């Protein structure tokens, strides 16, 4: 966007924000409509479609077997990949992953990994030799802001959806299937700052004029499992703590939606 247009748009948004309003009519701490469809891809071990407003993502889980990393012989392997495919935005190009998709994948990955959501020790088939290798692949289909939350929710739900084959003693697949050893539901909440206002669940328009962005991933007990200040800008300590408080509350709400869906699944 040319900087002149961008300035005009920002001025407009700031004047709205002074009255506690957002362009699309939401309150500062409101989320757009959240839609979660679990299990939409039956070729995947687990899958989930998430829509936040007009942002649409799909996450799929595949499970293979392989060797563990030498420094963690008693843990399964977990890999998160995000594709900002050209479908989702006129600005995304095909080709090797760019820095944006790498950051997205790594932030989602850390939220799941650091919260202890997966019991990696239960993914070991033979210690030091053979473990389950989990892949979470996230496809961004329509990019209209707040990819971090959409991708993070889709990823954890796809993991909870996943069924993997029980292996016999030689490590061969049997017909029987079990869910993944999941323990927690980490939920990322993203806020942006525009002229001292903190906005939850930023739209594409809001992201294009934001001063700064932060994502806080909380887990079931309300503790923080991961944080990431993104892009430019900076935050006061008080702002960070305020965002953390809001993220805990918002995280709890989304967690109960997910929990309900997970129990429906069984």
């Amino acid at each position: 966007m040319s900087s002149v247009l961008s300035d005009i748009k920002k001025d407009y948004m700031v004047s709205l924000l002074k009255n506690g309003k957002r362009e699309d009519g939401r309150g500062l701490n409101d989320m757009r409509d959240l839609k979660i469809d679990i299990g939409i891809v039956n070729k995947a071990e687990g899958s989930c479609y998430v829509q936040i407003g007009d942002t649409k993502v799909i996450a799929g889980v595949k499970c293979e077997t392989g060797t563990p990393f030498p420094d963690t012989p008693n843990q399964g392997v977990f890999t998160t990949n995000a594709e900002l495919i050209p479908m989702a935005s006129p600005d995304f190009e095909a080709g090797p992953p760019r820095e944006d998709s790498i950051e997205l994948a790594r932030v989602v990955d850390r939220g799941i990994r650091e919260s202890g959501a997966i019991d990696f020790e239960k993914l070991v088939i033979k210690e030091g030799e053979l473990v389950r290798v989990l892949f979470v692949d996230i496809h961004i289909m329509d990019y209209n802001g707040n990819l971090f939350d959409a991708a993070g929710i889709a990823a954890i739900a796809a993991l909870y959806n996943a069924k993997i084959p029980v292996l016999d003693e030689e490590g061969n697949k049997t017909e029987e299937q079990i869910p993944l050893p999941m323990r927690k539901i980490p939920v990322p909440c993203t806020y942006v700052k525009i002229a001292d206002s903190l906005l939850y669940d930023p739209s594409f328009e809001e992201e294009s004029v934001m001063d700064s962005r932060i994502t806080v991933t909380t887990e079931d007990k309300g503790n923080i499992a991961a944080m990431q200040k993104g892009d430019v800008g900076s935050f006061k300590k008080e702002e960070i703590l305020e965002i953390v408080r809001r993220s805990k509350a918002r995280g709890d709400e989304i967690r109960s939606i997910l929990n309900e869906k997970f129990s429906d699944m069984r």
Partner: protein
Amino acid sequence: MDKDIKFFENGKRIDGRDVDELRNINIEVGVFKRADGSSYIEWGGNKIYCAVYGPREAYPRFLQKSDRAILKCRYNMASFAVEDRKRPGPSRRGVEIGKVTQGALEPALLLENFPKCMVEVNIEVVQADAGTRCAGIAAASVALANAGIPMKELVPSCAAGKVDDRIVLDLSKEEDNYGQADLPLAFLPRKNEFSLLQMDGDLSEEQLEEALELGKKGCLEVYEIQKEALKKKYVREDDSNE
């Protein structure tokens, strides 16, 4: 690569279809906000999204043509769309399908209206179940219409094939894997010509003729479904505008 499979029982195929019967097809139009046009197709077990961007200035510039827009088609399969995980990113298979998809769609478009521009078609296979290229072309043609790209006609597409020495329409996964021939087609209904034609397997001249006829019939059915999907979209929009 025939296996010991019984492809027909009481004249019906494994999944209960007649030889000249398509699988269930459903197309939604305008499913994305950012894209200029978009669609979603469910065709048997296939689930495929399509987004169209353009016409906009072609980039990088050396691609620009002074007398018309270029058409870029990208076919991508999600890593989780198939039984065994596919490595993310471009594959040789995907590159070739992108190329023949472009060849299938371009004859129906009026690209000469937009010199130096490009139109981009992005096809994303989220679940694959045989016949993804045909389903992708059918969805892409609808998405191009949704994007308002001027066109002579829609491009329906579907495959014919041979299993157990019989010509059948729209191969299922099992028929594709263990059958004798696969013939993905796209058809221009007004021009009465085929704009996609690939084939591998084993066909006699007579079988080819039969397969082309059957494929054409299938394409014409897909054509109706495409038109219906667009009608539903625009009638609904008209309704809501009232």
